[in-house]
């Protein structure tokens, strides 16, 4: 519905930096997730887009029109807040029709759209309730309907699912993506949850300390994180320091404790590096299976800890003084007893290698 562009957008709160030099282009109908830790500048970006804040410098364009100075009420941005912000003394129905009423839209049309949305979002029948009479998930659905019915060209969601239970969160992630894609609306969805970002978005922009550090499709960001920060933020992982060694055309990472892994990297021979391997890419095998395995790297270790968390076991394996964190699918026949010996198997693609001189933030 609208193409959004941010050019060198910076926002300072007094001396505190909100965001700095944000350059971002979102194409018409795209679903972009903004991923970052608390304080990374997600909310600031969302507020800047909606006009609830104005940038200290920089320009924001909607369809090539400079709207930097346009007040929030004229932007046609549907905003979904983390804490819903439904108007407490209004019926659900009046909440949803608030936008059309104050914008003087055709109420009959809007009512029709609202009715269809209520069916789609599975909240039909709640129209005559007050917000405090419905559940959290329902509230957020109402808030979503309210944002869309107000004739929004751009949907901006600031961690909309944060306050909800895990299960409802997953259901809503799928519903959200489907709805946004069906409507063809441009959408920006801020979240601190990697899985959520991956599940909903066409592209993900990763924020660190008020800056965009990487932007790309979920696969790109996951498989080729461009910094240690991004790789580390994406999920549970094991990291170790060491250096690169090139033998024949192959690259090896030699950890400081002497372990050697075959990896893939552009770094030069002898360069100091940091290697990171996501927990879900580590494969765990019984020692006896060694002969049958076909992996680039296989090392032996001892189980320090094993915990079943539902879909998988969280296993910590000690290998030569390094603790490997692994997520191993349940159902595989692996000794889970503390202290038992075990094999940790990885391929060279599993390692993300970064040069060491970059400061490591944890």
């Amino acid at each position: 519905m609208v193409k959004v562009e941010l050019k060198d957008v910076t926002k300072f709160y007094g001396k505190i930096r909100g965001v700095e030099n944000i350059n971002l282009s979102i194409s018409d109908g795209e679903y972009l997730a903004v991923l970052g830790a608390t304080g990374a500048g997600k909310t600031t970006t969302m507020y800047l887009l909606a006009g609830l804040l104005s940038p200290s410098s920089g320009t924001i364009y909607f369809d090539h029109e400079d709207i930097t100075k346009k007040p929030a009420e004229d932007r046609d941005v549907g905003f979904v807040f983390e804490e819903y912000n439904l108007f407490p003394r209004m019926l659900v129905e009046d909440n949803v029709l608030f936008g059309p009423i104050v914008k003087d839209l055709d109420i009959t049309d809007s009512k029709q759209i609202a009715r269809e949305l209520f069916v789609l979002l599975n909240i039909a029948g709640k129209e005559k309730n007050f917000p405090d009479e419905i559940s959290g998930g329902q509230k957020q659905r109402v808030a979503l309907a309210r944002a869309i019915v107000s004739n929004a060209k751009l949907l901006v969601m600031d961690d909309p699912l944060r306050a909800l239970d895990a299960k409802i969160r997953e259901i809503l992630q799928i519903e959200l993506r489907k709805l946004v894609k069906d409507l063809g609306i441009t959408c920006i969805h801020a979240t601190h949850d990697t899985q959520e970002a991956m599940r909903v978005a066409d592209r993900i922009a990763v924020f660190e300390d008020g800056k965009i550090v990487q932007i790309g499709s979920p696969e790109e960001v996951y498989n080729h994180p461009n910094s240690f920060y991004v790789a580390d933020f994406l999920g549970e992982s094991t990291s170790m320091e060491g250096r690169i060694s090139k033998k024949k055309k192959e690259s090896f990472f030699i950890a400081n404790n002497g372990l050697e892994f075959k990896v893939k990297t552009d770094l030069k021979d002898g360069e100091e590096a940091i290697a990171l391997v996501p927990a879900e890419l580590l494969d765990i095998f019984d020692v006896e299976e060694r002969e049958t395995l076909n992996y680039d790297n296989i090392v032996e270790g001892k189980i320090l800890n094993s915990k079943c968390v539902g879909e998988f076991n969280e296993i910590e394996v000690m290998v030569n003084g390094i603790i490997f964190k692994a997520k191993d699918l349940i159902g595989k026949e692996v000794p889970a007893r503390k202290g038992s010996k075990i094999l940790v198997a990885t391929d060279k693609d599993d390692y993300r290698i970064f040069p060491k001189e970059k400061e490591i933030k944890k």
Partner: protein
Amino acid sequence: MDLDDPKLDVEVKLRRTLLATEKWLSKKGVLSAGKVFTVGIFILLVLGPILYLLLQIIISWKDINATVFNDPILGNEAFLMMLNSIGLSLKIAAIVTVFDIIIGVPIAWILARYNFRGKNILDTLVDMPMAVPTSALGFSIYLFWGTNNGISRIFNSEVGLVSQGTLLIILAHVAFTFPYVTRSIRGIIADMDLNLEKAGRTLGASPFTIARMISLPLVKEGLLAGTVLAFTRSLGETGATLIVSGVYQTAPVVIVSWMKGLKIPTTAFLAFILIIISLSLLTFVRLFARKVGLPWSKVFPKFERKLSSKPVTRTRDGLSLFLFSAVVFIPALFVIVFLFQWWGGSPFSGDPQAGMIYQVFQAPDQKITDITNALITSVEIALIVTVVNVIIATPMAFFISKMKNKKLKGFLDLLIDIPLIIPSSALGFSIFFLWGSNGMHILSPGFMMIIVAHVSFTYSYCVRPLIGSFDAIPTMYDEAATAFGASKFTAFRKVTFPFLKSGLIAAAIMTFTRSMSETGATIICMGVERTIPVLLVDFFEASTFPAAAFAATILIVISFLLLLLLRVFTRGKKNE
């Protein structure tokens, strides 16, 4: 162990006796008796006079009928006069309320939302008219608008800009009633969730539309309560009105003047009507405040957007601050300027005998003795009233706060507010009626009757904040103490009471301030005693303005100090 054991030292003995007494007091029967006693006192002191008045109206309807409607000489003259005065009072109260909203709401908004230097000062100034005796306030306002000392100097006029009458009454009433509106919504606006307004903006509403459709419904009840309070205060005010009304007589003024002429049956009937009007308003608001819908669900986006534009909002803020200074602040404190103008002599003729120094300290009638005596009487009364009220209000507040039956609680809560809204002269008259020679014949007008009257109308001011304090105390501490073996009374003394301290002090200062500044009921119940607000009215009626200004300034200074004290304690409470 035996209490009489000589080996135990005195302190231990005392403590044991105290604990034993408290245990006895905590017995079920004793506690219930205490509850009955508390409610009994409330009924006797607060409701009794009003009920007795209603009863007497019915019983002696013949008398009233004869004097009010069919007087052999005057016919129904008295009734017509009543209708006129009530009509005037209602009209004034309605206009005053409109102005209160116009000034009070933006000021509340400014105080709640903006941060600026001097905000604390503005905050105190806004509250001040509630603490300053209305007679002092009315006098000051009269000097400013109605004499050639004040505003008319700017225009070089020989006479006052506004003569005594309806307009001056309105000006005076606005000054001391608008804080009720500001107070009742200020806190609500400050606590409001700003995110709701953000949500409104992203949905396309202009700030004005948001204020009207989202914020207003949230402050609606508070606003309505404040408005009713302002309305009833204007309807029932005596002290200032006596000074600014001139020949125009509002209903409370008529009560006072009839009372002076000892026209008991007609006064009774007028007081009765005023009480009924106030009670109906209170009941209506309590029952329907939540249900009252707001009209104008239609939105005019373009027009409302214009109203939200910066020039308009700036003009609005500026205008309300201007109105506040021009209508409230400057006129209310003008008396101090006047006092200095007339310090040693008349600023016009230079005659020293017209000056304050001569009138107060040197003239043969020795006004300074009157002032000192009245001041002492006022403080004595206020102190006694405060002590009595704290003693009888604390158990009542505890009782209401802990009550489980919601309907009964709501009903008692409503009853508590009665003294707050009925005109104090009508209340004073009911007390005179019940306790004096027409009723139980226990008291005659004078010191004691003033105390009874003051206890009665300050009761709400004392109970209200205490209920709030009790509500805010978590019951778990109390329960924990009881679980450790403390009797209910001991638990209260040791656990609840320390929480209550600041609330109690606030309630006490409130009560003291109200008692110090009341005029209407005092005039009716006073006999020969004079309190200082009444003395001020006397000075005014004797046209000794500089002396009156001296008394008014003393009153303003005292109330200002009390207000600062109150702020210290209520502020401390907020920070907890």
